[in-house]
């Protein structure tokens, strides 16, 4: 009963807060904002929507924003995930009490064979998502997550097949380096980091968007291998 009362209190508070905001947002000032939204100079989003296609050549404006206009955030974001992978390994590596190694019963033949059969195709789906990040919804992070789900499937379905973490480390380092180097090439060529220095191509085809698809491939590989190494570490297979 106490829980019910406190939860309903919370809901009432939430209602109150949001009413405060909505009054401010959609009242007299809301009209003001709506007027501003139409002007390119004031609102980022409106400007990106109207000019992004010609400036970056990528059909997916969110991809343009993520990789180009706010690409520096994305560099930081990739770093955060990298930190999580490394930090998780740090936290788990000093474990003295090794987890009791229960000999896991092998999965049924159907599951085992099915995993084998599907694993490459899942990786392909992930690659498809990050290769087409600049054209369709999705991108490096989403594709990377799909790739990692392939590794998760191997861990769940093919028990005893340890995920090799050295491979993850190498992929992760190289793709991270590729991202930074691409960014620095922009600095060297045009004087600003993450500059889209390649030709933009004709819009809405695969070869468009300049560096955006290349960076997305690097991000996809990096995210996939990072999440993969997180799975490997949590499953206790990695050293």
């Amino acid at each position, binding site marked *: 009963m106490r829980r019910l009362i*406190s*939860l309903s209190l*919370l*809901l009432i*508070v*939430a*209602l109150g*807060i*949001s*009413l405060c*905001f*909505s009054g401010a*947002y*959609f009242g007299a000032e809301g009209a003001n904002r709506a007027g501003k*939204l139409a002007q390119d100079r004031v*609102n*980022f*989003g*409106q400007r*990106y*929507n*109207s000019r*992004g*296609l010609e400036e970056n050549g990528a*059909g*997916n*404006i*969110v991809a*343009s*924003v*993520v990789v180009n206009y*706010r690409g520096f*955030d*994305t560099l*930081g*974001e990739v770093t*955060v*995930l990298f*930190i*999580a*992978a490394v*930090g*998780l390994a740090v*936290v*788990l590596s000093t*474990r003295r*009490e090794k987890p009791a190694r229960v000999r896991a019963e092998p999965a049924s033949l159907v599951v085992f064979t099915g995993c084998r059969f599907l694993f490459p195709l899942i990786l392909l789906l992930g690659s498809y998502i990050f290769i087409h990040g600049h*054209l*369709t*919804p999705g*991108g490096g*992070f989403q594709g990377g997550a799909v790739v990692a789900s392939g590794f998760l499937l191997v861990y769940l379905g093919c028990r005893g097949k340890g995920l090799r973490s050295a491979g993850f480390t190498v992929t992760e380092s190289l793709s991270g380096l590729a991202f930074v180097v691409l960014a620095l090439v922009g600095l060297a060529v045009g004087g600003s980091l993450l500059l889209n220095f390649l030709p933009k191509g004709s*819009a*809405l085809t695969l070869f468009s968007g300049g560096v955006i698809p290349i960076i997305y491939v690097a991000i996809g590989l990096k995210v996939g291998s990072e999440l993969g190494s*997180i799975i490997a*570490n*949590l499953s206790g297979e990695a050293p």
Partner: protein
Amino acid sequence: MSLLSPSIHYVGCFSLVLIGLYVVLVKPNLIKVIIGINLMDTGVNLFLVTVGYIQGGTAPIFSEAARQPEGMVDPVPQALVLTAIVIGVSVLALALALTIRVYGHYGTLDLRKIKGLRW
């Protein structure tokens, strides 16, 4: 209901944030605390998306050349949410790793029984 309709998204996300905060502050179980943090994250992400939403807007993707930029929702909050989600996932992964270690040391996840974790 007409009073609520423009702000119903805000009600949803602030409820999520507050429920998350409640869980973090009240629950004694470390796993539940982590779930609470995750709830808060979800609420905040929802809030960010809501900020950029335009009534009846479409996704900011030019799937064919004929699409017009008018009526597309703001792409920036979506990019921000992407970043925020990744950060949330990272924190979650690290929190789970720490939880495994805490459990290894104390054999319990009850914050009341763990020596220093009182506040």
